[in-house]
């Protein structure tokens, strides 16, 4: 054997490992979960289960995209208002669509308006005035939920999603859920936007080193502001998907996605300090979270066991690869 060849080969593997370490680890973890489920519960490792997991994980992953863009812009960015924005859009558009395809364009316009408004306000406060994003977006979540409460006045929300939305969000083509295709399209667009456009470059630049970006003529405030607007618009459009999936709108349909979306981002190996963003890993993180939830439910330990398991696994996972060892 030529030593030079083995050498390059080991280099190749080393490079591959160092570049795709996080993806490989998450994929292995997901497989581990499926095998654990198969051993402990049985009937867990099936194609149908995998597809169902994919479908549910798609929703987390799409919310996590909002999160990832805001987090990547740095400055301690986080968006706790995503789920609530989605709720507001779903509630507002339910009666507009009223089960008619012809009203869908109005609903989309409303969704865009809601998303831009919320994102603009978030961005103004958190990016432009530099108030802490955690508190700003949390307060914005309160405001948005308050608007929903005031709009519904405690009554049931009438109206149905348009059939097109239901096809996209709830139905399947063959055996594949349509929302998975949507996720793939969104992922490709995201990858192009983040890695092939100047805006993506600016986003990561601002996120990893604000001063360096500023000195190179990038206005960090504007870039972060845009990140918040993008997050708001995406979250708002997610509202349309949620109502399409569930077939009706209710008062807290989106709020349960907020923290999982952040967790998925972190499990996907995105540093909360900003400057990083690999959406593929975030999708894997979402699948991991969803598989974990499925497994814990399937184990039948009840609520208590489910949450204890979730907490412990998340903690251990964080130790395993988000730990930030001190460099000496």
């Amino acid at each position, binding site marked *: 054997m030529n030593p030079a060849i083995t050498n390059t080969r080991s280099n190749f593997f080393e490079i591959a490992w160092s570049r795709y370490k996080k993806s490989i680890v998450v994929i292995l973890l997901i497989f581990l979960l499926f095998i654990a489920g198969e051993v402990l519960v049985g009937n867990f490792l099936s194609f149908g289960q995998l597809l169902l997991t994919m479908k549910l994980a798609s929703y987390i992953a799409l919310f996590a995209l909002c999160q990832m863009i805001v987090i990547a812009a740095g400055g301690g960015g986080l968006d706790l208002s995503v789920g609530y924005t989605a709720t507001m859009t779903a509630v507002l558009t339910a009666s507009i669509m009223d089960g008619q395809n012809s009203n869908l364009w109005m609903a989309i316009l409303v969704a865009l308006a809601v998303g831009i408004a919320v994102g603009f306000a978030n961005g103004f406060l958190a990016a432009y005035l530099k108030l802490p994003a955690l508190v700003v977006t949390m307060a914005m979540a309160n405001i948005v939920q308050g608007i929903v409460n005031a709009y*519904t006045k405690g009554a049931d929300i009438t109206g149905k999603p348009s059939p097109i939305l239901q096809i996209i969000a709830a139905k399947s083509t063959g055996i594949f859920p349509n929302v998975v295709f949507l996720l793939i399209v969104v992922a490709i667009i995201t990858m192009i936007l983040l890695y092939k456009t100047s805006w993506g470059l600016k986003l990561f630049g601002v996120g990893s080193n604000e001063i360096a970006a500023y000195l190179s003529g990038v206005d960090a405030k504007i870039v972060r502001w845009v990140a918040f607007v993008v997050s708001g618009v995406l979250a708002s459009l997610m509202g349309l998907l949620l109502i399409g999936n569930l077939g009706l709108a209710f008062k807290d349909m989106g709020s349960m996605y907020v923290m999982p979306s952040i967790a998925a981002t972190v499990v996907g190996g995105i540093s909360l300090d900003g400057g990083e963003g690999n959406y593929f890993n975030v999708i894997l993180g979402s699948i991991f979270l969803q598989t974990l939830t499925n497994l814990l439910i399937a184990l039948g330990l009840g609520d208590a066991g489910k949450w204890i398991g979730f907490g412990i696994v998340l903690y251990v996972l964080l*130790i395993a690869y988000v730990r930030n060892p001190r460099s000496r």
Partner: protein
Amino acid sequence: MNEKTSTLKRWVGRPEFSSLLIMLVMFAITVYLQKNFFEQKSLVRTYNAFIPLILMAMGQAVVIISGGLDLSAGSALSLMTVVLTYIMKKDDPASGFTALLAAIGVAVAIGMVNGIGIGYLRLPPVIVTYATSYLWLGIALFLRPTPGGQITEWFRIFYDFKSVPGIPDFFVEMGKTIPPALWLLIIGCVGWFFLSKTRIVRYMYAVGSNNDNAYASGIDTGWTQTVACIINALFILLAALFFVGQNQSGDARMGDPMTLKVIASAVVGGIALTGGKGNVFFAIVGALTLSFVNKIIFFANIPNAYQTLVSGLIIIVAIAGSLVYSLFSKRAMLKEGMK
């Protein structure tokens, strides 16, 4: 220059001062709307409604100053109420002490787990305390799937002196002006006053403002942040004692809505989320501001549906106000300097 005025000016220039102003405005509006605010009974009610949030905000402030954040505060509160009521038996006064000791143990354990994650393993505080919040919720649900439980009679001492049988009249009289809730706050404040004189609290400021520099100057950053988390857990325990005395039961989900309010209180009180800045006593001001706002919403007959909306707006106004204020005061100070 006159020493006195310059100290005053420096004090007015601090960003915390604006939180104080906002709080005073809210206080004035509350007093205007609630005609019987200063009556003894309504004052006691006010203390009871405000003090748990104040205590938890103080604890949160300690963690934030040391460079962390505790999203598990609410579930930790629930867990402590559950543990207390799980151990106590109604007919056994001694079980109250056992429960108290166990709760202190649980508080220290909660602080340790959070602190090890934040301090030693250097995980992002937002996400690690998010993970532990599910841990506390799960354990609490395991012990008590539905709200319930019982307490020994003397444990009501943490809520109301006069409902404790066989208590000296002196306490009952005192309870009318200084109810147990206020005593808990006094315990918290005095405790923090003495703690804040210690070296480790000064280290907290150093660690919070720059972890690496603090480490390089020989501070045990891991331990410092762990201690901050333990102090926070003890503050939460004080709030838990009050709630157990009040509700005479434990509930695994009671604390969940508190978490974000607690963090908002600390931020409104001028504690910078970036760490290393702020005064724990000003977390009281922040918590008071939010509590007064809730009272105003209640007394101003704002429909229920608008309450979340208004409280969200107030949080933004309060933190934006302190920012604008500090900008203006800085500018004023610069002008003063140029003269």
